[in-house]
């Protein structure tokens, strides 16, 4: 089959690899119809996630048709149209049973490596480095889906591929980011990053009753999407000072909750600070450029919530612990426990409360994956979200 493989920093190729086969009794094989490039795939693309190997198949947002199931999979049958959550979760460990699917205790066969860096191991993730399991990803014609009796959900015919594939990662991730803010009537929510996850976090904050949603980015085309589809207020951090503007917008209180939907490769307008973090990251002295996170902490109302859904992989410097501690902030974070959200969010789409596919800007065939990575990375052609059609 054809598959999108990581070939080194800034290099992906569509290569021929063997077709996947059932390896565990609870596996299913899915023939992929639509798969997406995620912002976190760009972290891999840039080489900031450790433990990648040349030839690793990328992709953790995918859906398609079940073509084969292992002997222990009874809820699915060949022919079912399914969308697959990006965290691989067994459903039976204590974490899964508490709904914490992205920290499944059994799904990372390389837990020993992850423990050395993170203390304990999170769940395995499709196509997301050997640190998180060494699983082949879904930017391919077929994928093996472990624990198919727990993760994938069937998609009804009236839901399009473009809508359904949003349930693999970005919509649940954005939704969890908003949910962690514990939004109360009248509250103002600020979101750093108007990429797919930031936009869907902002949209979810609306769904969950936020009075006002403010979104911060530097790309006017993305900010326009937020205004048009979410009715969000926008701040372009390249033209104004973010903290001053947020204080002005909230009459000095600061947003009640701040969502970091940027993560480890933050960009920002303060050139000297950016250069400092960029240089440390390039020298691998610091693995992240956490500017959005620092700013979210400083901006947040005292006693408010900082919700982190942007991806981080290692260590950050200059963490404003003083502000965080003295102002009674709360931080909530996590890779999304997608399995918890797929059904309720599918129902919200069915009820017409939201169409998350408004973020999609590009659709192209799988063979064009390298081009998709390039334009997504460079933000060319007003790129927000690239779907690959198989």
């Amino acid at each position, binding site marked *: 089959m054809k598959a999108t493989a990581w070939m080194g920093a800034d290099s992906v190729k569509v290569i021929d690899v063997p077709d996947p086969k059932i390896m565990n009794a609870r596996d299913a094989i899915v023939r992929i119809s639509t798969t997406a490039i995620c912002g976190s795939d760009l972290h891999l693309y840039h080489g900031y996630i450790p433990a990648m190997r040349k030839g690793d198949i990328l992709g953790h947002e995918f859906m398609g048709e079940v073509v084969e199931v292992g002997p222990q999979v009874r809820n699915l049958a060949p022919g079912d149209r399914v969308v697959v959550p990006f965290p691989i979760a067994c459903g*039976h460990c204590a974490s899964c049973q508490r709904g914490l699917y992205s920290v499944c205790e059994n799904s990372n066969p390389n837990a020993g490596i992850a423990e050395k860096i993170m203390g304990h191991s999170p769940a395995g993730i499709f196509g997301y480095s050997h640190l998180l399991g060494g699983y082949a990803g879904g930017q391919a014609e077929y994928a093996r889906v472990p624990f198919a009796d727990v993760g994938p959900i069937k998609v009804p015919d009236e839901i399009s591929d473009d809508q359904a594939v949003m349930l693999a990662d970005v919509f649940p991730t954005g939704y969890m980011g908003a949910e962690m803010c514990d939004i109360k009537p009248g509250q103002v929510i600020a979101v750093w990053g108007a990429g797919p996850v930031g936009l869907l976090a902002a949209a979810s904050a609306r769904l969950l009753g936020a009075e006002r949603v403010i979104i911060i980015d530097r790309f006017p085309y993305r900010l326009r999407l937020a205004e048009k589809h979410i009715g969000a207020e926008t701040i372009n951090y390249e033209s104004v000072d973010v903290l001053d503007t947020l204080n002005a917008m909230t009459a000095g209180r600061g947003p009640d909750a701040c969502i970091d939907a940027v993560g480890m490769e933050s960009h920002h307008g303060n050139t000297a600070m950016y250069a400092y973090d960029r240089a440390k990251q390039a020298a691998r002295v610091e693995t992240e450029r956490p500017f959005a996170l620092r700013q979210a902490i400083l901006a947040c109302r005292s006693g408010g919530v900082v919700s982190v859904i942007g991806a981080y992989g290692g260590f950050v410097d200059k963490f404003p612990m003083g502000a965080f501690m003295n102002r009674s902030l709360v931080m909530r974070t996590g890779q999304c426990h997608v399995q918890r959200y797929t059904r309720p969010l599918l129902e919200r789409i069915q009820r017409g409360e939201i169409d998350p596919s408004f973020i999609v800007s590009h659709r192209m065939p799988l063979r064009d994956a390298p081009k998709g990575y390039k334009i997504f990375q460079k933000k060319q052609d007003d790129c927000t979200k690239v779907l690959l059609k198989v």
Partner: protein
Amino acid sequence: MSRVDTVLLPELDGPVPATLPRALGLLSLALGVGALAAPGPVARMTGVDDSPAARSVLPAIGLRELGSAAGLLSGRRPAGWAWSRVAGDAMDLAVLGRALADRAGDRRRRVALTTLAIAGITAVDVLAAVRTGRARRARARVIQMEIAVTVNRSPAEAYRFWRDMENLPRFMAHLESVRADDLRRSHWIARGPAGHRVEWDAEIIDDQPNKSITWRSLPGSRVPNAGRVRFVPAPGDRGTEVRVELRYAPPAGALGRAVAKLFGEEPEQQVRDDLRRFKQVLETGEVVRSEGSPNGISVRQQAMQRPAQPLPPSRR
């Protein structure tokens, strides 16, 4: 049975064999006293009574033998003292070799007999030195550890799975098979690199249903080992804390190197991985595999990941 280190392994916990060193000590004592008290008769008996040097050499040898005797009979560092005897034997054989070349007739016959006797004693000395040294090193190599994992299953379920010893290879990566001979005894086969196989028999010496199992290898095993697993209810209704204690002494030599490879550079990590697989099998039904780690959790495999893409048909 409160701890695994109270499980006796005869190879490790019995006294270091001391009979042979003590016998050699007595021999040294006799030789030393003889050479000092009656150098004349000793010189005649050994056929060197014609040599003026023998009169001064024999008392020196006697003193050396008394030294060896004191060391060997003291019971401390028997291997070292046995090797000191081997060194003395070598000196004696060298001297006797020269004496043999210079002599003829009856004297030559007596020197030859002496040489033969010393050569025989040398062989016994080497045997004693090697044996006591090996026993001492086996004790020094003993590896002991305690590793635990929390499993989201009841103590009874975890106990039942472990108590069927034939299940052990499903999560203990280095085991090829375990055959239960009866309720207590089992035969274990571990696989190593390059076709090395290590086999031993084990017996369950304490069995507390749903609480703990203690086992040890039978006497004569080349890899003496003992283990104990306890199944403790985890607080807060979170299943079972499975606490494993292990104790074993890898042998020396090629077999020892094979066993060391079995357990890798970090034996504790290997056991931790075994327990992770135990957890996977109990909670999910089997060992979890990925394309990068097609055989499931293992330190060695983590270090040598294949690319995360489907396996070629030849490797399935």
